[in-house]
């Protein structure tokens, strides 16, 4: 049973990390608390599922969903987030207004999705990736995939940000966006690329969630809220913190699911998150956000 709990925990941690990665990235790079990231991922997943239903070949479905999510992410960044943020001169007030605006989208997008796709629930019917035996426990291909992608998302950004010039420029933007512009860094382009990457990871997270559990209209808001809670509790903008909290969350969800089950797993999981934030208000790995 321990192995069951561990494997389930790791795959859940992977999905939680994928879902929170977008929130963390956007806040870390630009200081934008974009709460629409969940609905963006959900929209991409809905596009993919509809395309699968229409018997379009799988790579095409994935391309459509990913492209749709990324386009939507960049569009919202350029036409909702940045104008709202800059309209009150940025800073904390700008962030509050980004929260308002993007949560407004959280309310709006499900209504649009229901009207367009004519359904409240969507079954993700991806081709099977098989099942494997690890540590005397069976694990599906998609659970393995969620762990693999999450690990890659943890390792690759770390390497990119600390070893490459582009990554160092991104770190510069997080610390001083104004100075970055003055030295010729295309700050707005970095924000747009970040929004695209965040949307892509939210899409993958939503798709994997739908494959392992299910997708419905309210899932977008749930992804956003979980993503935000994980990001805040990890240390707003800290990828390392979000990774740590995702593992903690995966372990608690998995353990309580096996040992207690039902809705209590959600209660205990959320209570753990609350305790983490009360005892470590700046998060487990606080970030250094300067200007």
């Amino acid at each position, binding site marked *: 049973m321990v192995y069951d709990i561990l494997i389930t925990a790791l795959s859940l941690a992977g999905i939680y990390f994928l879902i929170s990665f977008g929130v963390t990235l956007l806040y870390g790079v630009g200081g934008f608390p974009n709460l629409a990231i969940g609905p963006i991922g959900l929209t991409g997943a809905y596009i993919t599922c509809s395309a699968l239903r229409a018997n379009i070949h799988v790579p095409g479905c994935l391309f459509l969903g990913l492209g749709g999510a990324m386009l939507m992410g960049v569009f919202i960044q350029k036409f909702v987030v940045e104008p709202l943020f800059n309209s009150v001169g940025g800073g904390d007030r700008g962030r509050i207004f980004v929260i308002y605006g993007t949560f407004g989208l959280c309310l709006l997008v499900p209504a649009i999705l229901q009207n367009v796709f004519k359904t409240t629930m969507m079954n993700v019917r991806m081709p099977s990736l098989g099942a494997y035996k690890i540590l005397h426990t069976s694990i599906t291909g998609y659970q393995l995939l969620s762990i693999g992608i999450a690990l890659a998302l943890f390792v690759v950004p770390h390497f990119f940000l600390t070893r490459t010039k582009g990554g160092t420029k991104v770190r510069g933007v997080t*610390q*001083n966006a*104004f*100075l970055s512009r*003055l*030295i*010729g860094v295309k700050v707005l382009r970095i924000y747009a690329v970040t929004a695209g990457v965040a949307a892509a990871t939210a899409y993958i997270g939503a798709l994997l969630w739908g494959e392992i559990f299910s997708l419905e209209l309210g899932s977008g808001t749930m992804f956003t809220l979980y993503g935000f809670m994980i990001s805040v509790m990890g240390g707003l903008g800290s990828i390392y913190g979000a990774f740590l909290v995702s593992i903690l969350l995966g372990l608690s969800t998995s353990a309580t699911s096996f040992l207690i089950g039902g809705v209590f797993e959600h209660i205990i999981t959320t209570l753990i998150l609350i305790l983490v934030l009360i005892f470590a208000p700046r998060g487990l790995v606080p970030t*250094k956000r300067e200007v």
Partner: protein
Amino acid sequence: MGDFLLEMRDLTVLRGDVWVLRDIDLNIKRGEVVALIGPNGAGKTTLFETVMGIHKIIKGEIRIEGTSIRGMETEKISRRISMIPQEFATFPFLTVLENLWISQNSSRRKVMADEIFKIFPALQEKIHQEANTLSGGQRQMLALGMGLVRKCDILLLDEPTLGLSPLMTQRILSAIKEISARFKLSVLISEQTPLVLNISDRVYVLEGGQIRIQGASQELKTDERIRKVYLGMAV
């Protein structure tokens, strides 16, 4: 418009309902150090930011070697002009090397071999230290270094000695003079201290968004108007 490296003619900027700059005529020749002085709120920082394309120009022109840069993006302007802002002029959690590296369009090895370390040897000792662990003077040296490694023709320095001790102020200003002479850079420097008149060729006095006085620094240094109103020195 003449053979100036940087020229502003009738430059006018509006922010909200306020005329922050009005009919500014200012020019800099190649290799010249020009001082811009004035009280707080005169518009010095706004002028610099306007040159860098941050603020919208309502009227007038800015030209580099005759080519207009009005409406150009900041990123493009930064290839010809390097601006060191008044505050937050470094990336605090990047090392000295990383700060210089991302300012320059080349490899880390080339940065380490740059001449900037001959002018500011203290930076070489602290090359792997984060910028926020440096002293105020060292941070200002780093900021100047970041401006230099970009290899631009024009440097805009917005109060580079703000908050520094008199000794460090003297050293920074001397370094600026040396940099201008050695690299044939044109420098526009805004300052509150009268010491800036010792290193500059010409001076403009900005007040209420308008140029009130201009001329050679050596002549205006003893001008009563400058001494009394702008430099706070007893008459």
